[in-house]
């Protein structure tokens, strides 16, 4: 007993050295990382400083570090653009920019886990907007740029970046929607869903469509149902406008159940995971993958129409949304300025067009959209045709996406043998759940 204290001391000392040792290693690693980057930055700094040294005091920005998260396939592109950015804004020559590949799906989750360690500027899909606003992971768009951003980009996209009337992010793309890719040699007429499914079945090929929240609205909105949420300024959901528990809703749900019963139906809308398909409902981001698989038979079209159980014909609808670039709230005004300028630059007409040329992401900028190159793109053409039948994707609570997955699970499972009464009841529960997310 009496010597326990000595061991306690020993332990404290050991523990301290252990922690210190590890900590040291960590900081060393970071310093080498940043050293590499500053080296790279220095070369450009030398070039620019000579010409425009007088314009602004660069000292205020020197040594600041800005972390950028973008999808893996645009990391190189973004690095390039940041170099251009530094040339155009020479006062930021001393700033260290780090670009990390963090997918748009992960970005929101990671930001929310720990805002302080998250990126300063990051890309994300629109459906994450309210989650991020609620967690205070997004700064409002700089008032200096507000008018410009609103007028330069398509109205729907700007609306999509707003929560309670405040614009929280810079529109980056306007291609977050889905349409039909098909194999010309199998599907001869892509205008009706029944026709496509029939031809796929006959050829022993698959028809892919995801039925979770983002995609199932193609049916619900198609038959004239609505589902939107109202939010207050803080991003809280105040009201849910939904009429799924209706005859229209039932027609939509029955169509989904029928589609899922086809032997050629496969759940999923991600071309990389799809096999042996002749038709897939997917977005522009998978255009290259689909083209690779279908080769000369590659074709795109707007979503088809379907004949509901009530004998009427409906056009499939859906969301039109966008990818946004957000800036994290900062405790340092100078750094906020850098981030705002960078986000603004990375979503400018020039860069949006360049991004389209590099990775075929459809621009949100009106001028860029009107350019010949964008107009000539098959997938984007099909998408813009489809956009005529879709609604701009507003804000939806995270619970909606989770709950809609459950409905999709039921469509493939329990609902296959359900009666109309069961389905009506299920829709009522669904609607009640959706309504409960708005308080």
């Amino acid at each position, binding site marked *: *007993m*009496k*010597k*326990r*204290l*000595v*061991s*306690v*001391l*020993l*332990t*404290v000392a*050991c*523990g301290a050295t252990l922690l210190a040792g590890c900590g040291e290693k960590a900081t060393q690693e970071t310093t080498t990382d940043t050293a590499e980057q500053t080296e790279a930055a220095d070369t450009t700094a030398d070039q620019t400083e000579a010409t425009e040294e007088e314009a602004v005091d660069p000292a205020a920005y020197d040594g600041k570090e800005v972390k950028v998260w973008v999808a893996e396939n645009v990391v190189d592109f973004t690095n390039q653009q940041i170099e251009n950015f530094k040339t155009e804004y020479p006062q930021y020559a001393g700033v260290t920019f780090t670009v990390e590949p963090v997918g748009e799906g992960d970005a929101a*989750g990671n930001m*929310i*886990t720990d*805002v*302080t360690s998250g990126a300063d500027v990051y890309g994300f899909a629109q459906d994450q907007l309210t*989650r991020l606003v*609620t*967690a*205070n992971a997004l*700064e*409002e768009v*700089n008032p200096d740029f507000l008018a410009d951003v609103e007028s330069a980009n398509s109205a729907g996209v700007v609306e999509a970046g707003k929560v309670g009337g405040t614009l929280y992010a810079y529109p980056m793309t306007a291609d977050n929607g889905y349409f039909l890719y098909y194999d010309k040699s199998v599907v001869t007429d892509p205008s009706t869903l029944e026709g496509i499914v029939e031809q796929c079945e006959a050829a*022993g090929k698959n028809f892919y469509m995801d039925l979770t929240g983002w995609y199932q609205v193609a049916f619900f909105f198609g038959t004239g149902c609505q589902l939107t949420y109202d939010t207050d300024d803080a991003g*809280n959901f105040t009201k849910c406008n939904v009429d799924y528990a209706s005859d229209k809703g039932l027609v939509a749900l029955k169509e989904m159940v029928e589609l899922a019963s086809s*032997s050629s139906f*496969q*759940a*999923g809308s991600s071309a990389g995971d*799809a*096999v*042996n398909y002749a038709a897939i409902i997917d977005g522009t981001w998978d255009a290259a993958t689909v083209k690779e698989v279908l080769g000369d038979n590659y074709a795109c079209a707007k979503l088809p129409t379907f004949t509901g159980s009530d004998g009427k014909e409906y056009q499939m609808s859906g969301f039109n949304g966008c990818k946004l670039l957000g800036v994290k*709230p*900062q*405790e*340092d*005004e100078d750094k*906020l300025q850098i981030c705002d300028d960078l986000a603004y630059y990375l979503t400018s007409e020039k860069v949006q067009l360049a991004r389209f040329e590099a990775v075929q992401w459809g621009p949100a900028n009106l001028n860029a959209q009107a350019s010949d190159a964008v107009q000539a793109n098959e997938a984007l053409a099909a998408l813009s045709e489809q956009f005529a039948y879709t609604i701009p994707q507003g804000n939806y609570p*995270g*619970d909606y996406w*989770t*709950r809609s*997955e*459950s*409905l*999709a*699970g*039921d469509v*493939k*499972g*329990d609902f296959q043998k359900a009666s109309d009464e069961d389905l009506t009841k*299920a829709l009522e*529960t*669904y609607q*009640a*759940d959706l309504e*409960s997310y708005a308080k």
Partner: protein
Amino acid sequence: MANKKSGPKKKNALANFFSILVSDLKEIGVTFKEGDFKTRISFLIFGFGSLLRGLWLRGLALLAVEAGLLYFVFGFGWTYLSKLSTLGTIATSKKGRKTVYGDNSFLILLFGLLTLFAVIAFITVWRINVRINRTEQLILKNGRKLPTNKDDFLSLFDSNFDKTLLALPVIGIFVFTVLPIVFMICVAFTNYDANHQPPSNLFTWVGLENFHQLFSFGSAGFGSTFVTVLIWTLLWALLATFIDYFLGIAVAMLINKKGIRFKKLWRTILVVTIAVPQFVSLLYVSKLFARDGLINGYLLKIGAITSAIPFWENATLAKITIVVVNIWIGIPYMMLIATGLLMNIPEDLYESARIDGATPWQMFRHITMPYMLFVTGPFLLTQYTGNLNNFNVIFLLSQGGPKTGNLVGGAGRTDLLITWLYKMTINDTNYRMAAVIGIMVFIVTAGVSLVVYNLLPSVKDEEGFQ
């Protein structure tokens, strides 16, 4: 360390604990009353008495610990500890376009607890310090010789070797296991979720509200979902454990059978599943069984089926598929164990049975099985509790799907409590409910263990092995 010891003890014998406490307090009083000035000053300055008595090693050690803990508590922890009761009140605000963060409830709770631990450690060391002074004084009073500094040092490698060995592991477990667990238990009593996310939003204590939600059986309540998931969790663990167990033994016996050659080859083939990381093999197997996967593809091609089998879409099929794939994972492990144990069964038992004309089946029933069950009882228990929390198999194979509207909180038909909890943490950042589920998982695991453990025939006196 002492606080930890008293923790579980309180559960066992509350009265015992209080009697120890009373006698402890009495001893402290006596120490002070009978103590010389060295001892008395030691009540404030740790190790003071030892230092003046020439035992500078232990004296300095005590002093260093005191200084370290005081520095930690007042230099770092105090700001957090003082706000522990409210978890922070200052909201995040804006100054122009700049964000000024207010209190961070998360860090207040975390470091508040850490500081609390430090305070307990301080009291413990103080108690040790008092006792040391008392002992030293008594030795001197009786005219005996105090141990030297060298004795002190050497005892760390002999009579006190246990303390040397255990110090680091115990502290490691305390900081990286006990503290987080206490933290999460606390979270179950707060409203820490997506709408109360630090650093921008505060969260606070809400009492038993989350437990109410868990046991409310309305449409938005977690009650029925919890029961459904719990039943499947228990059933799954039962199936996974026993099917693997018996099949594993069967395979082991087959390989051990006289006349079967290349024993090592067969074993090696099976054991590959243990060696290859599961995130590779299970993800591949999951794709294999998908509706558009290879198995369905080939079955369709040869015309054995006309439409794909929904291995992962149909709830019952998904459950069966998971259990079957788990056999693929589980058999090799059980086979290895059974092989070792089967060889330990005395051959003469079989010999005499054979002479009595027993059939192989009878020998299996009356010799092999009883022996195996007896010897592997505790192992089966750990397997069972392990399977209750078998995250990898479920998460990598079905992600808990198929999902259904009949379950709330994003739970699917094949979700175990543990994967459900994971989804709640990662997808919905619903930490408060996840913490409640976590406590439930603990209660289930502990409950099962306690019941089964007491039923086991082979629970022997630990010393009996030595």
